[in-house]
């Protein structure tokens, strides 16, 4: 006797998908400017793409970050780049002191203006035009392969292939967290982020580890199914233990995996998988939250959602852009865009109230928003 498990959320998702599978209404080749009043987050009107002709030294752009002084930085397969006023990119590589050419992740210390760069061989501080590197052989960094970095108070955190390390920027002391001294199931860390008082570590095979630095305590969020074959029940916890990225913003924790997406808002979990939700692909590389909206980079394009409405951006067969808006109970609204993401394999995202940037496997993209009403409270971005 087989039992089918269906939660109310599933039913809701089913209704949503019923709409998705209904005949989509294809928009004009280039839609007129729209305000998308019912979409509670900015909708991208067009993309501007940047590649090697703009000085980006490699196809692959792993990470993108606009720092609080307005500078745009990207981490590529072949160096760290800073966008110049003329729109070109200036490269910093090993010859400039970067510990390895592959820049994987970026974080800003907003107190000092320093940029921290994780590479495939060490952690780097870019400060005042100078690069200082920290490696596992020359410092307390747990491992040279740094997938994620974050600055929390007076500590810089690095998620590495052999644990997460925290360096106190005042004392230079390192603390390592791994399976030996924390609840961490495996030591293979992919990302690290923070809330006001907690650290969240995305662990490959270990779900999400929450650390309270004041108490020194740990807590973990794991896929309750306990088996990777299935997602037995939706919305019951992290979709999977193989966390590819974790990010926190405004009380909401987002987890991306190669098995789908999860979100925890402090009271309950919500999970999304392809085919059963508008999520473009289960293979999600990155998530960037802003105003409780998740900007989700997968191997198949970009998904943006507040949990109810979804807007997907894909690259068509002829490199055209395809934007699909999924509204509950309505057929998807598909619009062909004359511009598209540089590539559908999205690796890194930065979004603020003015624009969005995407690092892809084949170039950098800037998303230009259609007119929309900006949130009332816009954080100061200048030092």
């Amino acid at each position, binding site marked *: 006797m087989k039992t089918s498990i269906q939660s109310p959320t599933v039913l809701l998702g089913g209704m949503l998908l019923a709409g998705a599978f209904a005949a989509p209404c294809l928009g004009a080749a280039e839609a007129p400017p729209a305000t998308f009043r019912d979409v509670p987050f900015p909708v991208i009107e067009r993309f501007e793409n940047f590649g090697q002709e703009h000085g980006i030294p490699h196809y692959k752009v792993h990470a993108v970050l606009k720092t609080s*002084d307005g500078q745009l930085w990207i981490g590529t397969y072949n160096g760290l780049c800073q966008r110049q006023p003329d729109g070109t990119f200036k490269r910093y590589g*090993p*010859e*400039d*002191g*970067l*510990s*390895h050419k592959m820049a994987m992740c970026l974080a800003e210390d907003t*107190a*000092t*203006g*320093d940029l921290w760069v994780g590479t495939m*061989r*060490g952690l780097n*501080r870019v*400060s*005042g*035009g*100078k690069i*200082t*590197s920290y*490696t*596992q*052989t*020359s*410092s*307390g960094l*747990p*491992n*040279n392969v740094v997938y994620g970095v974050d600055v929390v108070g*007076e500590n810089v955190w690095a998620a590495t292939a*052999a*644990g997460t390390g925290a360096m106190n*920027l*005042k*004392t*230079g*002391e*390192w*603390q*390592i967290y*791994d399976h*030996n*001294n924390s609840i961490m199931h495996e030591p293979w860390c992919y990302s690290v982020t923070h809330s006001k008082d907690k650290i969240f570590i995305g662990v490959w095979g270990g779900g999400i580890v929450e650390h309270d630095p004041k108490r020194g305590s740990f807590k973990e969020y794991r896929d309750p199914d306990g088996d990777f074959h299935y997602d037995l029940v939706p919305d019951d916890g992290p979709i999977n233990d193989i966390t590819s990225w974790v990010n926190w913003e405004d009380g909401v924790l987002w987890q991306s995996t190669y098995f789908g997406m999860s979100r925890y808002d402090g009271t309950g979990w919500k999970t999304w998988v392809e085919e059963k939700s508008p999520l473009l692909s289960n293979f999600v590389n990155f998530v960037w939250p802003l105003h409780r909206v998740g900007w989700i980079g997968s191997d198949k394009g970009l998904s943006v959602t507040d949990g109810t409405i979804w807007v997907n951006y894909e690259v068509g067969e002829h490199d055209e852009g395809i934007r699909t808006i999924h509204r509950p109970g309505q057929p998807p609204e598909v619009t062909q865009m004359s511009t598209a993401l540089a590539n559908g394999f999205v690796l890194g995202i930065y979004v603020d109230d003015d624009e969005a940037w995407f690092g892809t496997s084949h170039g950098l993209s800037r998303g230009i928003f259609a007119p929309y009403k900006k949130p009332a409270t816009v954080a100061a971005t200048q*030092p």
Partner: protein
Amino acid sequence: MNARGFILVSAAAAVAFAGVGGGGYFWSLAHERHWSGHPSLSLVTCNHCHLGNTDKLPWAKPHPKHASPAALAVSADGKRLYIALDELDEVVEADTASAQVLRRAKVPGGPFGLALDDAGERLYVACRQQDRVAVVDTRELKELASVDVGMAPVALALAKSPDGERLIVANSGSDDASVLSLSPLKEIVRPATGREPYALSVSDDGKLAFIVSRLAEREKPRTSGDTSGFPFIVPQTADPYHVMTPPASELTVLFTRSGRVFKRAPLDSAHLSESIASVPARGWMLAPLVKVRNLVPITQVANGWVMSAGFAISDLMGRVIQLPLDEANDYFADPSGIAVDAAGQRAYVASGGSDVISVVDLGRVAAWLVQADAATRQSAIEDLALSSQYVIARVPTGRNPRHVVLSPDGRKLFVSVRLEDKVLVLDTATLKPAGEIALDDGGGSDPIRRGERVFTKAAHTFQRQFSCRSCHPDAHVDGLAYDFDGDGIGDNLLDNRSLQGLAGTAPFKWNGKNLTLQIQCGPRFARVLMRTDAIPPDDLNDLVTYLMAQPPPRTIPFKRLGRPLTPSEDRGRKLFFATQRPEGTPIPRARQCQTCHRPPLFTNRLPSAVGTQGPRDSTDEFDTPHLLGIAASAPYLHDGRARTLEELWTTYQTNDLHGVSSYWSKHQLNDLIAYLKTL
């Protein structure tokens, strides 16, 4: 007892004595060999291992303290001069007109740097030994408040801009700067600086702070980053110091309001910047420096190319050029202090090693800059003939002028003559002495003080190129390695070792061949380094007395002194003293940390082979350094190849010869290093 009996008894006694003596001899040999793990025992005495404690070492004993004036600050009306006396824990107020001391106030913690507010009501004091800034009410001359900052603050400056007031503090011990708000008095942010930030100055608009660092980043291979590939391709045979980049110290530029870093400008091949002054009229910052050429053979002393004094000019964007202070055949070592008049016409640079004030005509400097092309400007520091175009006078002072400050009207220059316990007052119009403020008797009867005078005196070297202090600021390290070999090849660098905490650690030199400091600093030095006559015997004895009185450097924040070890440090301690691996297999005695680095000095004073022989080293045995204050004396190993402590057991560990580390997790290595930093 008859004769026969006497003979028998004597014979028996002789046999017993011989037995005991011989047995004792062989027992002691075996004992030494067993515990030292060292096959060659000719140097070993009981004291090598059984030094009970450090209480009787010269640096642990009380010794005379002197006024030793450090920083100076003049009130806005020019009437009051404040003097920091770090050795005495005092701040002195003097009347500039009469050159008399008016009041003294106790400010514990080694007051070293001073900053006075515009109203002259608050004196901010950097207390080097207690990692704090004290606020002194100048009306009462009494400490009002205190705020903790980074380690070993030595200089501070007020920044007043339309955005608000800030106090910026250079923390020489923690390589950072504290940015403080004044109301409330608290630290806002602590950005990293270069190594050992030592002085700072604020731009005229109060928006930017320029911080110079005393030490350079160590020279490194041209291919940057972690090139070793540890742990899978440890380059055991690689030459760790081929094709080095020259060292560079850092000029750090901060936004004063936010404390964010605007720029880190390298001062190429330069270090030992101990002061910086703003030239508002020209939009410059001026910082004295020592141009160091440690990568060329030290034999070049005779050719005048190892180090020379100069100064950096930075614009407000942090773009830097360097100009010489020295002359082709006369050097003005250890440029320590600088002051610039309000009009930007003259700069006064104190040369602590040469006991002179060099007067620089900034107008001529500006004129030269205008006519020189970019290439000429960039290479100007190499042209020792150039200084004659703008250095208009060399004014003698007393021994070891360190800090200088001008009266607001620019007519008086106050010079802290540190090793004569006085402040010299110079008339800037005549460049003649206009008086002096005596703070103590000069300490001439104290051999330690006399020794420090020898230590800081450049006259002992050929053409007065440098003093002992030029490489050993505060008798510590400059963080560089030098080429001492006379082969002229430019390899076989030797790491500069700290002179702090030296007592009880003989022999000296990396090969351990100098049994005493008299040998180390005497004729051999004259031949290799100074290239002139050896230091006279009496001076040499004073010098040794001074060196032996230098305690190990402090590497722990003041507020943590005396506290128990943290869990991590304690785990590191256990690792340091481990005699077996976790699974119970013994660690060979010769490879236990404590065997060679035996407490309390953490050296057994014997040469050891720990797998660090370089491709052109003639031996694999090197003197075992003591570990007191080891955290503050990077780089490490005899040739300074290890830039951090971690590299000792990663990049430069060979077959577990330098301690058995192959079983360590990264946790354990971090624990061990945490422990070493407490020594």
